[in-house]
């Protein structure tokens, strides 16, 4: 089967500053990959390139299928109602019905006719997820979508994303700097540092994962990020 994402020798520089320095990456259809790294390691840049938002690069980045995205900020159109935000750009006559079903799936029924600015951060982010999913993407790009949420909302969102991914099975590329998030959700974790993939971890733990089950691997992933910790047993 064709790869959902294939990247070969990808370089990107902003002026004299190299942001991506030879990235090779392949993602299988339906695979959940987390891109983990500190701020400025190039992970968001990589995602933007895959989304087609940045084309001035050296190397190859191919995403043959349909791409969809959710950002750290929900980026909803404040002047369009929630359901229109989901349905716009779909070009389907049954847009409202599709949007209503998607809202049901992200557990926000009854918010279809709300204005986005009246939603809480978590609700808006769920609308953003619904908007990404109704496009039935082959590749779903998630650019720190939980970064701006409070800890409790973030937990609920982790479950929701895993649930949606299990049901729709797009390939997912999740950009995050949260090790636990990556361990809870991803099949594979790529650690990025200074524009290179410096480590790859396969996470073979059964799902749904609990916090305790990921502790052992956590230490190793953190070590790759240059963080030494003594895990309490």
């Amino acid at each position, binding site marked *: 089967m064709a790869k959902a994402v294939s990247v070969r020798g990808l370089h990107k520089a902003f002026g004299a500053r190299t942001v991506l320095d030879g990235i090779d990456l392949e993602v299988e259809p339906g695979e959940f990959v987390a891109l983990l790294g500190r701020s400025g390691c190039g992970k968001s840049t990589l995602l933007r390139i895959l*989304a087609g938002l940045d084309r001035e690069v050296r190397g190859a980045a191919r995403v043959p299928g349909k791409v969809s995205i959710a950002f750290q900020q929900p*980026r909803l159109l404040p*002047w369009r109602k929630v359901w229109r935000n989901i349905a716009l*750009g779909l070009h389907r006559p049954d847009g409202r019905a599709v949007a209503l079903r998607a809202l049901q799936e992200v557990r926000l029924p009854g918010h279809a006719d709300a204005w986005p600015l009246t939603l809480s951060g978590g609700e808006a982010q769920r609308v953003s997820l619904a908007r990404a999913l109704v*496009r039935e993407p082959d590749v779903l790009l998630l650019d720190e979508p939980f970064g701006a949420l409070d800890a409790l909302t973030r937990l609920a969102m982790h479950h929701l994303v895993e649930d949606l991914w299990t049901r729709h099975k797009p390939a997912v590329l999740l950009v995050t700097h949260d090790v636990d998030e990556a361990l809870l959700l991803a099949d594979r974790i790529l650690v990025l540092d200074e524009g290179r993939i410096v480590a790859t971890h396969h996470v073979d733990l059964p799902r749904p994962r609990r916090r305790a089950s990921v502790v052992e691997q956590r230490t190793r992933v953190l070590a790759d990020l240059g963080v030494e910790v003594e895990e309490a047993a």
Partner: protein
Amino acid sequence: MTSSTAEVAARPKSATTAPTRKLTLPLRWISPVALVLLWQLASSTGVLSPDKLASPLTVAETAGELIADGQLGEAFAVSITRVFFGFLIGGFTGVALGLVSGLSRWGETLLDPPVQMLRTLPHLGLIPLFILWFGIGEEPKLALVAAGVAFPLYLNLHAGIRQTDPGLVEAARVLGYSRFERVVHVVLPSAVPQTLVGLRIALGTAWLSLIVGEQVNADAGLGFLINNAREFLRTDVVVVGLVVYALLGLTTDALVRLLERKVLRWQKR
């Protein structure tokens, strides 16, 4: 310690605001009404001669007469027609130019510099040129109103389009919006609040332009009514005309506010 003092300081303030606010509205009418009474008193006692300023009562009476004999209605119709068509011409020009220069790079490169240069001209200073170009009929008056309307609309529409959040445009691109959909659903709606500010400025300028334009050889309209009254020292008629101008300005401003509330109902309030 500091927090408790702040609390003490804040408390009496918040406790007194509620009742004062209810009282404020009628209280705020005291001085305007007093001024009118003073004006009436000065007129009645002969301190203020009717040649300088007619008394409020005379003004009210004259207004009644002007309405009854249809003079005011006729003048009103003429003036409002001038503003309407002037606004239409200026509005169309301003919006068309603003769209072209806001939505296309070439449009901005070619259009924006000359418009930005021209806007520094006080447009009321163009009257001599307009008279030379258009004569002293309706055209220079319409042109003056149109010029006053076009610039604020252009500037605010253009600025509004430029202020579009690039994050929203990016999202729309990845999510598969066509270029047309990006313009209609992302760019233009985000320019609306700023454009409405422009609309309000434009309407204010439209009335101002009309008043100035109607000083130029008008043979009908509110300006004519006022100028004609001046010749006969009828300060009462002059004041009536001014009051009508003011009411018209207030009305259009209220209409725009209404429009804002309707169009911007998505904003959190």
